[in-house]
């Protein structure tokens, strides 16, 4: 798709940036994929000119889907400008909030504050609150250095205790980081509690059996000191 004339023509609407993770020592921005919420290759994402992640569009995406995402971003820009100009009233504010919550491009603290002030209908509250959980999770994940998973894990434990569990495609990092924290602290009770939760929650995922076995083995090793 990237080599087609169709893509080359469409791409004039944006600035194309090719980021290659090479693991060469002098590479600038070596962890940019991770910092922008990606977990695998390849990934295509729209960014603002300040580097803010606006929309992740998946792997190699057809031009028609890129165009749809592009039009969505233009509509969001227009809506934001309307609200910032003090126009559109509370309906526009609510629409902007829902749009930006779905995009995940604003800080969690700001969105939680906006949610508290906006008239969210009861029927929408559960979905909105889950989106806020996902936003908080994603923010902690992006702010956690790759080699310090236990740091993010400690924050995820607090979310786990509060029943705030993400359901995004990167959800697995939530558990991985908690196990990293529990292992580092040699907190076998926490490790076991979270593992039991995960085994029950993912009981219908047979392909995870091997991973869960690895965690069980890690737990036994931790218990053995």
């Amino acid at each position, binding site marked *: 798709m990237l080599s087609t004339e169709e893509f080359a023509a469409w*791409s004039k609407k944006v600035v194309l940036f090719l980021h290659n993770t090479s693991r*060469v020592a002098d590479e600038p921005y070596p962890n940019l994929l*991770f910092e922008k919420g990606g977990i695998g290759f390849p990934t295509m994402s729209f960014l603002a000119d300040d580097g803010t992640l606006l929309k992740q569009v998946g792997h190699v995406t057809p031009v028609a889907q890129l165009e749809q995402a592009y039009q969505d971003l233009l509509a969001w820009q227009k809506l934001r400008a309307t609200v910032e100009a003090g126009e559109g009233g509370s309906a526009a504010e609510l629409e902007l909030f829902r749009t930006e919550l779905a995009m995940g491009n604003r800080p969690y603290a700001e969105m939680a504050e906006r949610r508290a002030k906006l008239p969210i209908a009861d029927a929408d509250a559960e979905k909105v609150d889950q989106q806020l959980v996902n936003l908080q999770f994603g923010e902690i994940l992006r702010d956690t250095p790759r080699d310090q998973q236990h740091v993010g894990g400690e924050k995820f434990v607090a979310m786990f205790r509060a029943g705030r569990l993400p359901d995004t495609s990167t959800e697995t990092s939530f558990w991985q980081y908690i196990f990293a924290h529990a292992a580092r602290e040699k907190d076998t009770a926490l490790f076991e509690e979270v593992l039991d939760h995960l085994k029950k929650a993912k009981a219908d995922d*047979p392909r*995870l059996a091997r991973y869960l076995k690895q965690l069980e083995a890690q737990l036994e090793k931790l218990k053995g000191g």
Partner: protein
Amino acid sequence: MHRSTSSLAAAFAAVLLAGAPPAQASNQEALKEKRAEKLAKPVFENAAWRLDYDAAREEAKKDGKFVLVYFTRSYAA
């Protein structure tokens, strides 16, 4: 949100991948060669790909455009 078990399993694998240690210095020359090979691939010849992140953002700001980033890798190619 429902996801297939394969995508969930793949996500677990990706997490493990993301946590992989950086390459040793002795591999640096090989990694540079792989990087050069990746960036020279014909698939990137047809459109105007920028390789400098800072310059790409500056251009986007100047022209009032979004940045579309394509994340790829060469170390495992």
